[in-house]
């Protein structure tokens, strides 16, 4: 781990000249370090190869114009009677809440859920705290390093997939087309996520 950290610091240009000298001298004396460095260099090469991508420049010729057009359509949406807009959001959120309270028991376990079940209480708490606080300074020291957000998202998706049919019917009653979700604000999106999390962890 320590050697890997040194290699990444070296390749990322984080080392000062003294550290570079010391590191390069260590490399010469260690075959293991040389192999590790070779492996990491391969990663950097692969990443760097995807840096310069040529594109059809015409796309960028009228972004400002497209923006103004998009803004006009946004203004049209906003002119929709406020009460109807607010009412539909309340209906959607009520529907989601209703679904959560009346959720069908779990009858089908998929691989990701099995993984979650294997976590102990402390890990689950840590997972939940990580997700809900959105603290992303990822310095965890255990096996689930860096996987929290993904596991939680997968869990939420798995939870909802279990009741997919019921959910579809319920949502269909409240939403006139799935695109309505595109109009939810960030705060409302947060609310939905939080509600889903609480049903699993509270």
């Amino acid at each position, binding site marked *: 781990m320590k050697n*890997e950290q040194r290699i990444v610091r070296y390749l990322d240009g984080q080392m000062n000249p003294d550290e570079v000298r010391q590191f390069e001298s260590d490399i010469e004396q260690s075959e293991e370090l040389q192999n590790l460095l070779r492996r990491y260099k391969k990663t950097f090469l692969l990443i760097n190869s*995807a840096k310069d991508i040529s594109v059809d420049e015409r796309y*960028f010729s009228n972004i400002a114009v497209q923006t103004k057009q998009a803004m006009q359509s946004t203004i049209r949406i906003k002119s929709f009677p406020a009460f109807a807009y607010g009412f539909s959001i309340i209906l959607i959120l009520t529907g989601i809440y209703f679904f959560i309270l009346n959720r069908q028991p779990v009858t089908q376990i998929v691989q990701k859920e099995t993984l979650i079940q294997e976590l102990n209480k402390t890990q689950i708490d840590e997972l939940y705290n990580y997700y809900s606080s959105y603290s992303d300074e990822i310095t965890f020291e255990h096996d689930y390093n860096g996987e929290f957000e993904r596991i939680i998202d997968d869990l939420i998706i798995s939870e909802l997939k279990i009741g997919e049919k019921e959910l579809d019917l319920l949502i*269909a009653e409240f939403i006139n087309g*799935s695109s309505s979700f*595109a109009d939810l604000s960030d705060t409302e999106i947060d609310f939905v996520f939080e509600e889903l999390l609480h049903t699993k962890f509270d």
Partner: protein
Amino acid sequence: MAQNESDFDLVESYLSGDESSFNKIVARYQQKIYWHARRMTGNHFDADEVLQEVTIVMYKKLKDFQFKSSLYTWLYKITATRSINYLRKKKLRDIFSLDDAEPMALDSKEDIVLNIEDKEKLKKLNEILKLLPEKQRQIFIMRTFDELSYEEISQITGKSTGGLKANYFHAIRKITEHMKKYEE
């Protein structure tokens, strides 16, 4: 007009009524915004949406911009937030999708990357980036592709440089581990 007009000059000019200055600001930063969003979302269609969203925010909020940070940092902050929010909204839309149809193949549709070799490179990169949780991916992209310093990333994300370095290390390590498995 001089090519090296500063961001400050362009913003001032736009605020005093010169609409073309806004276009110049967009032209200056649109590729950076697009590519950040594209690497975050993994396809042109979603990157296009994010770019439009960011440009709209820019248009609406530029009048309140007071140069407490650089325009560049401000735009990156908007782009970073919008990209993450876009991914989360998309995830929710996928969850609540009313049909079981497979998601549309967005990689190729009306893509602005035309060269087959470049498409392959991007495909490979997307596979790798998908391994990383969204926020880790974002920091990795800012450092590797947007070529921002840790101090700049810290200003944008509000995270400590130490945390960012640890984050970057874990990202690289995970990608390298993945490549090793792939080779074996």
